[in-house]
């Protein structure tokens, strides 16, 4: 199972994904720049990703605490916190990019 991570230049990386892992953990463990300062507690907003519009319907709605963190991190309509997305087989092929805000945090 894979996650497709789209780079700033449009290139795609196919990351091995494991069921039950947070998408944040999958991205981080592949060595991509994502800080995830709070370690997945939905408390810092530094793991923000933009999920491809075609995949939005497959994701659960963000909870209130995720919305709060997105508010504080200049999110757009496609933004999610990758620490709040648990990978399941239904998400095989999930296409996303690390948000500009998160990339700036990691820079």
């Amino acid at each position: 199972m894979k996650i497709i991570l789209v780079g700033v230049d449009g290139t795609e990386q196919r990351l091995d994904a494991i069921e039950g892992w947070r998408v944040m953990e999958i991205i981080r463990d592949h060595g991509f720049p994502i800080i995830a300062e709070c370690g997945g507690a939905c408390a810092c907003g530094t793991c923000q990703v933009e999920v491809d519009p075609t995949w939005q319907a497959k994701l659960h709605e963000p909870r209130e605490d995720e919305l709060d963190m997105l508010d504080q991190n200049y999110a757009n309509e496609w933004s999610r916190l990758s620490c709040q997305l648990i990978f399941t087989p239904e998400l095989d092929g999930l296409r996303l990019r690390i948000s500009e805000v998160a990339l700036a945090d990691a820079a």
Partner: protein
Amino acid sequence: MGNCKTGVVMAEETITTDVVVIGAGPVGLFAVFELGLLDMKVHLIDILDRPGGQCAELYPEKPIYDIPGLPLVTGQDLTDRLMEQAAPFNPQFHFNEQVEEVEKQADGSWLVKTDGGLTFNAKVIVIAAGGGSFQPKRPPIPGIEDYEGKSVFYAVKKMENFRDKKVLISGGGDSALDWTINLQPITKSMALIHRRDGFRAAPASVNEMKKLTAEDKMKFHLGQVTKLHGANGQLEGVTILDNDKNEFQVEVDTLLPFFGLTMKLGPIANWGLNLHENLVPVDVEKFETSTPGIFAVGDINTYPGKLKLILSGFHEVALMAQQAFRYVHPDAKLTFQYTTSSTSLQKKLGVN
């Protein structure tokens, strides 16, 4: 337990102590305990207004499950218990202060200076600064740096500064809502912008904001600021992209973004320490940096196999204290003792 604030201590006075700990998070607090057992006095400096660091600032209510002996503890409870554990050693706290400079003295000790004008003289410095210092989040609007401090502000220090201004506040939390309501009466015009029609602020504040909007005393925009217009740091207007993808310009001379806090390494980068990807490399025997007498413990340090766990930090401070002792009490003999059996340690803890 002391709580010295800027202004209480005379600016010219130098505070002399054994150890300055930078950062009053869980690891900094436990450093007080380990250093205290070895007869070292500690002053702690933190940019926040209270102890606990990330535990208190980012996740006070969230449960932590991996603290040995505490199967479940919240960030705030852990902070409270570490404060209790440190209390016998009478640590002195200096909150709302950021360490700007450290300077080696001829006698081998260190001068530590804060942005609030405090000066410390210490034999040892322990950096327990976690992810760095908390700073307001800067929204990713091109060129915003040029306006900061002139017409873009991340805090309201004096309300009077905003009298007769055309103010736009950005954000959806308590700070954004409270300042919208409190500044509205004295401003020339007030507007709030937020990306959704939901707020994490007190419902009463949200209702008050909606009332002011209904009465046409202020404006509320759903969307985000995408461009700033002005010259020489003076804002003249902003471009807003609303949620229906319409772009329009609004005339404002002041922008107050309230997006919470983020962590940045900050002045530590200027202290001449070796750094590796914004972390401070240390050895794994003493957790000392490349500069003798300066230690780094907890999330801010790095070494082979490092895990960013609170419990790793606890281990690190115990070993750090052994080496710190040699700097603080160079002529004393260090004997290894257990708190369970040593009457001398128990006396220090006030339990015997």
